[in-house]
């Protein structure tokens, strides 16, 4: 499955070679990435705290959407970004659809496993909303901050 990557608001089909994937079990058993690029694969029912130690050593974390309705990975992604300060790639795997991709990006995902032909639809979905109400992992300013800025500018 190709990966669509989001960087500085632009979505492109990645030409990168796939990383070597390691599971949390393998990490716990002592497997350590050496040379090349590595991705840690986390199921959506694990506490991401258990992966905290591994984060500094991997280039990507892969989170799962077994079905689009199962939204646990949204919380996992935010925790990785906001609590554990993870700056590497967070990639969505599984049922990754156009109509959820904006929520994913806001939660901290910046890579999506999807067909190449999905790219235009995904890009459109990512730009459908220009205002958000709440702060999340994407750094978008919530409406209340923009209101405050507008007031300050007017004063």
């Amino acid at each position: 499955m190709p990966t669509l990557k989001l960087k500085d608001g632009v979505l492109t089909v990645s030409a990168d070679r796939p990383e070597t994937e390691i599971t949390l079990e393998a990490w716990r058993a002592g497997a350590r990435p050496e040379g090349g690029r590595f991705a840690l694969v986390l199921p959506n029912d694990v506490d991401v705290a258990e992966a905290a130690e591994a984060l500094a050593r991997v280039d990507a974390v892969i989170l799962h959407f077994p079905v689009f309705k199962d939204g646990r990975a949204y919380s996992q992604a935010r925790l990785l970004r906001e609590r554990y300060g993870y700056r590497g790639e967070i990639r969505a795997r599984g049922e990754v659809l156009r109509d959820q991709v904006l929520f994913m990006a806001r939660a901290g995902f910046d890579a999506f496993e999807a067909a190449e032909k999905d790219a235009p639809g995904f890009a459109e979905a990512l730009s459908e909303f220009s205002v958000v109400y709440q702060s999340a992992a994407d750094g978008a300013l919530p409406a209340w901050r923009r209101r405050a800025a507008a007031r300050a500018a007017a004063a």
Partner: protein
Amino acid sequence: MYRYDEFDETIVRERVKQFRGQVARRLSGELTEEQFKPLRLMNGLYLQLHAYMLRVAIPYGVLSSRQLRRLAHVARRYDKGYGHFTTRQNIQYNWPALVDVPDILDALADVEMHAIQTSGNCIRNVTSDQYAGAAADEVEDPRPWCEIIRQWSTFHPEFSYLPRKFKIAVTASPHDRAAVKVHDIGLILKKGEGGKTGFEVIVGGGLGRTPYIGHTIRDFLPKEHILSYLEAIMRVYNLNGRRDNLFKSRIKILVNTEGPENFRDQVEAEWEKIRDCDIDIPREEIERIKRYFAPPAFEALPGESASFEAARARDAGFDRWVRVNVVAHKVPGYAIANVSLKEPGRPPGDATAEQMEAVADLGERFSFDEIRVTHEQNLCLPHVRKDDLYAVYQALKEAGLAAANVGLASDIIACPGLDYCDLANARSIPIAQALAERFAASGEEEDLGELKINISGCINACGHHHIGHIGILGVDKKGEEFYQITLGGSGAEDASLGEIAGRGLSSSEVVDAVERLARFYKRERREGERFLDAYRRLGHDAFKGAIYADA
């Protein structure tokens, strides 16, 4: 009331545009019904027995006359000339055509309304006390907090695919008119030490097939932390709520499986980590939103009105309507006027376009342009001068809206039932109509006093039968409709779940049985005792006996 600024307006307009695109993809065949379903469900569009049903949010039950007129317009132009007000301060249209829905949403966006998150496994419309800002017993106006929660929950990126739907209710009075103890989260604004107000946080209540009364997990939360605290609750639920079984995925199951103390500890631990993470909005934003809910320009009036008293003495119908439907206001010389949508013989909660327009006119002329929708499926004019009540009553009478039965036996809460809903086992509306006609005709309704009857057409309990003083549940027995009676429920501050009373009854038996219950109560009651009080004193068996007395 709240008014959209450019940011609120942009979000709603962009949502309509997005949904228009989704509908176009469906109509062109690019999307199958299966693929379209989750998308339409995120926007309150259900496929029912006969047609699509569109559910429109009325945030915390507050409408301007302009908004209510627009709801009437939608009913007339895109539906069959009426709408159905629900128990969660929404309005439902039962007959829109799919191709029209984007235009309906645009028409609603023109008056700052939407159908966002009125379905789907997300945070639904925040509901509140219909008397907010007018009630004599409220600690402070809960509506600014409802609006703050509405904005925070709208398109929340982390909480749009929860294990199951999620309902929040807020009240600010000791008398709970918002049923907060049977919501996923119930919030009660109250005074704490030093006179500051904060929230009591109740989690895990709910009805449906496994009803629970919620547990208080925090007695007092400083108000300014409400969003971070909600976010902590939602995160614990999103990560740990069950997803393997639709019927066990509400937060009430998680809270009661983990135990309320354990659940609370998880929430508190999460909150400690996020309370300073830029989730709570600053004081200036709270104040900005509060300003929209400043009290209207009430006149300084005497507490009593001579013309009002004279009209009561002259017109017995008016006098009764005042006794039953009118409630004390916090400002002298004003009153809260309830508008019953339970005219006996009509489907509970339905209003025609003409009726909506009549109430909109009255709201504009006599209630500072405000109309409220109640969780008991009625409307309300929150700020009417006593001097004007007679004029209001006469206009309501003209519109067929002067039923004097709010809180009485014929003020029945009922789901749409088998007449509309494809989940239902039995019809609800005809039972409600038959009961209401029976009680209204008896002339004893007012004497019976507060008697809450709730009817659900299946165990999903949309008619909230568990919290009716008398609850009626439709069941299917070998292809025939039967009705099971529950007794002793309450959704108010003394919340309790009704207990099942014996075998099911046929549709012809159930009306007689309820009448026997009322008669039994009347015979046994003590001075000033409501039906529910008498039930609690005499016990389940005594009342259960009355159901089958002559059967």
